[in-house]
């Protein structure tokens, strides 16, 4: 029997075996890499937290601590209170950082980046969270909420800006008026300047004239002072004469005052003697007047005088007049 053998099929089994082995190794390598990427070969533990809305969350979503991925979202489910329970698988080697006071946040990586879950590291003294423990969730504002918040804050400012602009644009407003006034003022400024220039020129001319007048006045004053010299000399001579005669005049005045003093003392003596008698004299005079009055009254009642003296009427009235 002739066995005709093709060289290409020589050692075929071995070749297939090598090929299969390579395929298996490749498959295992692929599995290993994918498993490593999917954290299949690391020890993990479970942590939970609850949020109001599940929007933005997805299974496999990365969980980070200080910007470093430490785990992924494992499960998202709706609970009895219509809130969303989220379970995350965390690499156990990072367990020491996640403590009771650690907080979980839903944040966006950058302005246009992916949504991630970020866990903050707990304090040194705090207890480490165990498998299945509940994390505290802190709500952060999303882009929309931030935009709304910003809009709420900016809105009044914009309204104020709008008011200010309308106030500025108001033709009857102060600013427009002031601007108009400034425009008018600046229009008049050139004529005012011309006037001021004229005024300054006039003032300069007047000052020049005034200084000339002052000079002539000073000259006149000097002349007058010079001419006053003889008058002052005369006054000086007169003063000398007065100085000579003054003592005599003063002596005379003094002696006159002495005389006056004597006269007043004499008058005082006389009045001093008479004064105590004045009331007595007055009384006597009154008595005399009363006596005279009685005599006159008696005489009035004596015939034949009494017939000529009218009896006084009680109706002593200020005369009246119909045309007063």
């Amino acid at each position, binding site marked *: 029997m002739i066995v005709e053998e093709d060289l290409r099929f020589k050692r075929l089994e071995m070749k297939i075996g090598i090929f299969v082995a390579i395929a298996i190794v490749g498959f295992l390598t692929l599995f290993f890499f994918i498993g490593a990427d999917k954290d299949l070969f690391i020890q993990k533990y479970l942590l939970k937290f609850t949020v109001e809305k599940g929007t933005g969350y997805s299974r496999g979503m990365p969980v980070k601590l200080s910007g470093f991925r430490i785990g992924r979202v494992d499960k998202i489910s709706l609970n009895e209170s219509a809130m969303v329970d989220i379970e995350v698988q965390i690499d156990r080697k990072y367990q020491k950082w996640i403590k009771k006071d650690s907080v979980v946040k839903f944040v966006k990586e950058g302005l246009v980046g992916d949504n991630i879950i970020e866990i903050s590291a707990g304090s040194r003294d705090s207890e480490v969270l165990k498998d299945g423990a509940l994390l505290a969730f802190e709500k952060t504002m999303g882009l929309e909420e931030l935009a709304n918040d910003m809009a709420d804050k900016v809105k009044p400012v914009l309204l104020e800006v709008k008011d200010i602009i309308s106030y500025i644009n108001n033709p009857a407003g102060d600013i427009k008026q002031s601007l108009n006034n400034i425009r008018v003022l600046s229009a008049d400024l050139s004529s005012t300047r011309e006037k001021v220039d004229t005024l300054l020129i006039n003032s300069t001319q007047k000052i020049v004239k005034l200084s000339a007048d002052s000079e002539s006045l000073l000259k006149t004053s000097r002349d007058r002072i010079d001419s006053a010299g003889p008058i002052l000399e005369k006054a000086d001579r007169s003063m000398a004469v007065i100085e000579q005669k003054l003592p005599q005049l003063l002596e005379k005045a003094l002696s006159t005052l002495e005389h006056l003093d004597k006269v007043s003392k004499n008058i005082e003596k006389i009045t001093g003697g008479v004064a105590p008698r004045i009331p007595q004299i007055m009384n006597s005079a009154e008595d005399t007047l009363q006596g005279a009055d009685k005599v006159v009254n008696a005489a009035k009642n004596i015939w034949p005088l009494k017939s000529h003296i009218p009896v006084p009427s*009680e109706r002593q009235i200020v005369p009246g007049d119909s045309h007063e």
Partner: protein
Amino acid sequence: MNNIFRVPCAVLFFFLILAAVGCAGKVPNSLSESQMQAISHNQRGIKHAARGDNLQALVEFSEALKISRSIENSEGIVVALLNCSRVHRHAGDAKAALTAISGAIPHAPRQMPLYAEVAFEVAQVKLLSGNLNEASEWASQAVAADNSSTRGMMINLLARILFLKGNMAEAELKAQEALLINRNNGVRAEEANSLRTLGDVKAKTNRGVEAAAYYNQALEIDKVLGKSGKIVADLRALARLAESLNDSGQALEFYSRAFAASRANGDLSGASEDLTKMSLIHEKRGDIELSQRLLTERANILKNIQTQQ
């Protein structure tokens, strides 16, 4: 002397002595010492009032009033209050005058002879206050109560009030009646007043010629009596009449005379008014310069009045 006449002479002398002693006896005086004092105060007050010293006059009348009140002498009280009112009225103080005369009314019953004077004074005070209706009522009461020589004065006042009320016909009648009474009684000042009222009535009723005649008669009497104030009143009335008859020349002449008389009498206020009237007439006649000159003179007079005050 013969012995035959000695005895009859002695008897005659004895009787003469008896008669002289009898006549020299004290006449029973009806007035008490206090009344006499009150009378003296009133007399002094009247003298002060005549001199224009109203303040001193009031002091005297107040003394008289005090004395009369102390002895409950109604007539004395009425006289003193009447005098007080008259002095206040002459000074232009209607309120004080009314207070004084109102105090006299309860002491003056209608039968009292002084009632007519009291009613006359009340009428004058009301007239001064501008209350013509009450003035007219009181003047009528005064006329009704008075039968003495002052009746003409009372009727004159009533006539004047009626004229001021615009009742010309009645005013003329009353003035005519007063004129007759005053002429009969020889009360010349009131006769002039009657004539002036008649002149006013005639002037008001457009009887200018008759009015001028009455005013001139009044002026003549006032000149005889030497009443400067009344002379000025007559001259002004004549001037007003001439003005109303469009005789500006005559009006100017009368105002000019009134001005001179007022100024001489010391009535500077009245004199300044005369100047105003003259100035207006000159202005109407177109003589602006003279008009202005008169106004300047008037301003000087008013300045003098202010300086005196």
